[in-house]
C-alpha cells in the first residue's frame, strides 16, 4: 500500500495572535506542534505499512518551519516527507489547502490511501480531508475508529457518529480521517530521531505540483476572515460552597432551585 499522511503544524497554545492586516493567524509568534489528531493518522499509516508492506509519506503545507513536523513524522517511522511551501500557498483557506494537497498527492502518484486527522486544533474545521477527496474525486470516510483491509483494493472503515458506529466497505484509492481512539501512537525511537536529523526534506512549489496558481493561497480562497473578536467573557462570578458533604449537596440543590433548574 502506498499511503500519504497529511499533517499540519499548529500553534501549541491557544493564545493565537492575529495579523491585523490579513486577519490570518500569525504562525511564528507561538511555539508550534504537530496537530494532535495527526499523530493518530501517522500511527495508523505506519501500522498499516508494518502489516501490509508498502510505503508511507508524510505531506504538509506550511511555512519553511513546518519542516519540523515532517522530521517528527520521520522519527515516528514514515519513509519520507514532502513540504509544500511557497508564498503562493500563503493565506489558503480549506478550499485552496485541499486543492494544493490534492495536487501534491496526484504528483506523488499511485497513492492508495490518504490519511488525515479528524481536524486541526487551530481552525477546528474538519474540512480538509473531505476537501482533498473531492478534489481527487475519490471515496472518503471520516471520523474512523478502525481501518481493516479486506483485500488489495478494498478496506473496511469503522465510522464514529452521533448514535454509534457503522462500517463501510470502500474501494481504494480513498481519503480517510481518523479520531483519537483508533490507536495508541508510539514514541520515536532514538534511531528514528537520528534518521530524521539527517533526512533531506524536499520542498515543493506550485510548479512542482502543476497547480493553477489562481486557485492557491488567498487568491484561490473563496472565504475571507473579515473580523476577529475575543469571545464574550463569562459574566457570572463563582459561588463557593464548603463544609460537610451533606451541607454541600443541600446547598447545591438550593442554588439550582434559585435558578429554577430543579
Amino acid at each position: 500500500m502506498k499511503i500519504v499522511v497529511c499533517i499540519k503544524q499548529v500553534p501549541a497554545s491557544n493564545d493565537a495572535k492575529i495579523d491585523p492586516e490579513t486577519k490570518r493567524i500569525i504562525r511564528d509568534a507561538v511555539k508550534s506542534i504537530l496537530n494532535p489528531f495527526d499523530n493518530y493518522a501517522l500511527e495508523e499509516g505506519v501500522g498499516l505499512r508494518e502489516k501490509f508492506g508498502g510505503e508511507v509519506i508524510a505531506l504538509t503545507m506550511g511555512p519553511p518551519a513546518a519542516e519540523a513536523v515532517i522530521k517528527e513524522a520521520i522519527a515516528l517511522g514514515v519513509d519520507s516527507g514532502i513540504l509544500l511551501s511557497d508564498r503562493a500557498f500563503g493565506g489558503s483557506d480549506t478550499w485552496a489547502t485541499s486543492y494544493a494537497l490534492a495536487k501534491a498527492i496526484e504528483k506523488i502518484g499511485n497513492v492508495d490511501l490518504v490519511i488525515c486527522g479528524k481536524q486541526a486544533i487551530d481552525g477546528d474545521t474538519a474540512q480538509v480531508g473531505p476537501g482533498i477527496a473531492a478534489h481527487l474525486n475519490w471515496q472518503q470516510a471520516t471520523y474512523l475508529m478502525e481501518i481493516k483491509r479486506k483485500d488489495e483494493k478494498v478496506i473496511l472503515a469503522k465510522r464514529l457518529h452521533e448514535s454509534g458506529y457503522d462500517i463501510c466497505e470502500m474501494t481504494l484509492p480513498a481519503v480517510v480521517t481518523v479520531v483519537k481512539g483508533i490507536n495508541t501512537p508510539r514514541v520515536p525511537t532514538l534511531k528514528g530521531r537520528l534518521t530524521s536529523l539527517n533526512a533531506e526534506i524536499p520542498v515543493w512549489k506550485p510548479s512542482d505540483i502543476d497547480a493553477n496558481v489562481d486557485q492557491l493561497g488567498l487568491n484561490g480562497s473563496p472565504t475571507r476572515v473579515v473580523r476577529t473578536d475575543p469571545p464574550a467573557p463569562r459574566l457570572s462570578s463563582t459561588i463557593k460552597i464548603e463544609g460537610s458533604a451533606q451541607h454541600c449537596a443541600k446547598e447545591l440543590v438550593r442554588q439550582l432551585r434559585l435558578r429554577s433548574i430543579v
Partner: protein
Amino acid sequence: MITKTEIEKMNFRNVWVIAEVEGGIVQPVTFELLGSARELADKRGSEVWAILLGYKIQDIQLFAYGADVCVVIDDHRLTHFIDELEAKILSRLIEKYLPEIILCGATSRGRALIPRVAVATYCGLTADCTQLDIDPNNGDLLQTRPAFGGNILATIRSSNHRPQIASVRPRVMKIPQPNNDRDGIIIFESILPSDELNSKKVVDVYHDAQSAINLADAEIIIAGGRGTHGKAGFELLRQLAQKVGGAVGASRAAVDSGWIPYTHQVGQTGQTVQTKIYIACGISGQIQHLVGMQSCDLIIAIDKNPDTPMMQMADIAIVGDMFEILPELINEINLR
C-alpha cells in the same frame, strides 16, 4: 478562480437547509437550522428551502418550522450515509435551483458531506458557525465561528462566490416554535445516473447509546477526571447521570487511564460540548479541557483543591471530596 459577478450573483436566491435524516427521521438539528434560515430569509426577502435526502422519510413537511419549499429525494440508496452520493446529488440540485445560502448541521455527517459539496461547486464554506447574519444590501452571509478552541471569534465572508455555505454547530441555534398553519410546496426529485459515482457501501451499522458523540445531545453532563480515581468513581458519576437524565463526560487523564472510552472525552482532542449544566468532578481544568466545555450555560465544579482553574472559572465551586459529596447529592435528589 471562478468568482461571480454582481449580475450573476442576483441569480442566486433563497436559503437552503440540508436536513439531517437518520433512519427516515428528521433530526432536531434540522429544526434549529430552519429557525436560523427563516431569520436570514426574512431579512433578505427570500424563501427557505429544506432539502431532504433519505429513505422512507417521515414527516417531510417542515413548513411549521419555517420552510416554504421541501425538496425530497426518497430512495433506498439513501438508507445509509454515502458521502459521495449525497454530495453529487446536492451539487446537481445547487446547479439547478441556485440557492444563495446553504446551511448544514456541523454533525459528523454534515462535516463529511458539505466540504465535498463546497469543493465541487467552488464555494466558500465556513465550519461550525455559532452566529449568522446577513448583509441586507448584497446578501453577504456574515458567518461567525470560534477558532483556536474558542479563544477567538472569527467573522467570515465569501463575497464573490455563490452559494455561500455554512455548517452550524448543533445546539446553538434555538428551535423555533412550530406554527402548524404554515404551508408550502413539496418538490420530489429522484436520483439520476449522473449522481452515482462508484460509491462505497455501508455493510454494518451499530447503534450504541453509550457511544457518544451524543454527549453533544445531552442537557446535562457529569464529567470525571483523574480525581475520579477509577472505574468505581465513574460508576458513581453514571448513577448521578441516570438520576438527572444526563450523560457522562471525561477528561483526557481519565480516558488515558482506561477508566472510560475515548468517545466520552471532552476537550481539544475530544468533543466540544455546550450543555445547560456541566458538572466537573475531579477535573483540574487545564486549557485543553476548558476549551471543550467553557460555553456550557452553568458550570459546577467539585474538587478537593479550591484553587484549580476549573474551580476558579466555575459558576458554582464545591470544595470537597467527590466520593463524599456525590452520594449525598444522589440522596438529596432521591428525596425530591
